[in-house]
């Protein structure tokens, strides 16, 4: 298949991500504005950092006057989970993709683009398909940010709030079919959910930042899976 077709297929597959990103990015733009962060800084955050939760946290900390060092460290920890995702995705990208193309693709790794790409049935993923996913996701995030900054008002409250669940529903739609099909997947996902819930709910762990709890739960679930199902996910 040619590059253009793959690219378009990727953009189309990423529409659910766009639907989830726009309202969150609008909220980000509004929060930035309300926190007196200059528009250029908010726009740069969405273009260059391009990682939702850390942008919200970053703007909050800037407004509170937290030191730059602390903000950078918090950002690093919060976004470090992408390291695992990048490692996992590296094994799925078509052989022969140039290092330059890979570095471009890696910029677009988010929880959502990674999940969407990983749940594809194809064993190897076309880099142009991945680029299509990343492009639509990136554009939606940045368009939403501009909208939030310019309009300064969100969608009606109830709609804005209910759209907060969009990303989670996409995750469910991606994960459940595999959980139903494969016992190893069922065990891995159930374990990481259980570990994450324990880390969130047991007061003793309250000090652990949410960036770290996700990493611990992700490594924990995958490690348990590797121990009990060393043959992996059969196709």
């Amino acid at each position, binding site marked *: 298949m040619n590059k253009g077709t793959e690219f378009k297929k990727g953009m189309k597959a990423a529409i659910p991500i766009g639907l989830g990103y726009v309202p969150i990015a609008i909220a980000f733009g509004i929060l930035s504005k309300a926190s007196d962060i200059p528009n250029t800084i908010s726009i740069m955050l969405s273009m260059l950092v391009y990682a939702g939760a850390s942008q919200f946290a970053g703007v909050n900390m800037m407004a509170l006057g937290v030191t730059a060092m602390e903000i950078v460290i918090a950002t690093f920890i919060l976004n470090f989970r992408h390291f695992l995702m990048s490692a996992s995705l590296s094994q799925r990208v078509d052989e022969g993709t140039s290092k330059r193309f890979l570095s471009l693709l890696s910029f677009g790794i988010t929880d959502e683009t*990674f999940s969407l790409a990983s749940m594809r049935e194809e064993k190897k993923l076309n880099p142009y398909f991945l680029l299509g996913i990343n492009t639509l996701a990136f554009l939606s995030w940045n368009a939403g940010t501009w909208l939030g900054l310019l309009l300064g008002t969100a969608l009606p409250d109830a709609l804005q709030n209910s759209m907060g669940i969009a990303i989670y529903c996409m995750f469910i739609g991606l994960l459940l079919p595999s959980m*139903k099909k494969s016992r190893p997947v069922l065990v891995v*996902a159930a374990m990481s959910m259980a570990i994450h819930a324990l880390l969130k709910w047991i007061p003793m762990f309250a000090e652990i930042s949410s960036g770290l709890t996700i990493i611990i739960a992700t490594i924990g679930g995958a490690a348990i899976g590797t121990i009990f199902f060393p043959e992996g996910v059969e196709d």
Partner: protein
Amino acid sequence: MTNLYILVILMALVTYIPRLLPMVFLKDMKLPPLLKVFLQFIPYSALGALIFPGILTSTGDIYSALAGGIMAVILSLAKANVMIVVVGGILGAYIVMMLT
């Protein structure tokens, strides 16, 4: 103000580097079979951790979150495509939010 620009650049760097390094360096490396299995499980594990318990607080109140979540589960078990699951989940949450 210049400080804020430098801060954003630093935030961008510490975010991009972990995204970049494994993709570029692990791509052509021969990995031990168990590490490959571990990496194969990462997406499922990450999805589990991303969904739960975060979904419970995604809409601001637990009832609408549960309604949206259950709707999404039912639709995806019924093999609806992801777009339908997302729209159905939003509607489920929205309806319960309007009712309560």
